[in-house]
């Protein structure tokens, strides 16, 4: 596998939503790393896109936007919170896109393909 672009998935679960599996299947060209916290984030190669699927998305975003490595990295946050304020808070903290967590694998596959494509475009623009 040639690693063209890197997606970093931060999740505190066991890929309950199936996003990691979907990313590997739908975006085979992308190098997908999975971590659980900021310490692990710092030990991985700098990604082109970060995907947050964690209850601590707000805390991580707050930290990322002050960290030199992650200050400008595009962030896609997955949320299953219906609370408008919670989602808006993620945008205020610097999320580029918030997505409601898809419930079915087909929709998750579509989202994963979109994330992989987006990471590839971010990488191409950075070259």
């Amino acid at each position: 596998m040639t690693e063209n672009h890197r997606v970093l998935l931060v999740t505190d679960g066991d890929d309950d939503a199936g996003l990691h599996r979907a990313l590997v299947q739908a975006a085979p060209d992308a190098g997908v790393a999975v971590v659980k916290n900021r310490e692990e984030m710092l030990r991985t190669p700098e990604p082109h896109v970060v995907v947050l699927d964690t209850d601590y998305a707000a805390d991580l975003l707050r930290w990322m936007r002050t960290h030199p490595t992650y200050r400008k990295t595009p962030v896609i946050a997955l949320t299953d919170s219906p609370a408008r304020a919670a989602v808006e808070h993620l945008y205020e903290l610097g999320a580029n896109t918030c997505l409601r967590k898809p419930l079915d694998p087909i929709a998750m596959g579509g989202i994963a393909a979109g994330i992989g494509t987006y990471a590839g475009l971010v990488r191409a623009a950075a070259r």
Partner: protein
Amino acid sequence: MSSAWDKVIDRPAAQGHLVQIYDEGNERSLVRNVGRYLAEGLRAGDGLLVIAGAEHNEAFRRELDESGADTACAIREGWLKFFDAQETLAKFMVGGNPDWRRFEAAVGAAMRQVRKVDAGAGMRAYGEMVGILWKARQFSAAIRLEQFWNKLLSRSTFSLYCAYSIDVFGKEFQVSALDGVLCTHTHLVPAETNGNLEAAMNRAMEQVLGEKASALRVLIKANYRPSWALMPTGEAIALWLRNNLPNQSDEILGLARQHYHALQAQS
């Protein structure tokens, strides 16, 4: 225009706060949509308040006449009132910012002058004072004025239609500039009724991004921003591209502009 957008314009919810972004050089879509919003209001028995520039007031009146509405009768009976936007604005601007008490007095007085055709019917207002402030680059004053309108909307049952002259394909149409506008409205009304903007965006994305365009569209469609006005797909694509692919967005939106004008010429 899809039937969903038809309903938004024809039968806006009480306290609905609509906004249209239009091209200053081509105001036909604004005149058509606002004319329709007003004509449907008159048919529903609503009172109508229009606060616009002199040229727009005249154009809306002509559009109402052409729709078959008895505009002269509506004006005579006090169901329809036109006010000059600059003059109204001058009544409540203090030091470059709108003053709530003066706004409430000026706009409240204008609203009280409008009688309803039918007892129990609602009221529809169109206002472009915010657009005037925006054009003068008084962005925070424009958003403050939108918040004042929302305060009035929360107290009574009328709907409001606003308009801003902004180039959808230009750099000004981006999240950092428009967040305040989108957060203070319920619906961003599509400028055109024919889906040409979305078609132009899709064609331009496919030209620049190739087969990647379809995967990206899924991501754009899933973007979730609950505080923003509901918006048509074409405008949503333009905003997402500006915010998330700044390096490619100029090329895509430049091509989209060409396709859009070509499609409009064919329509």
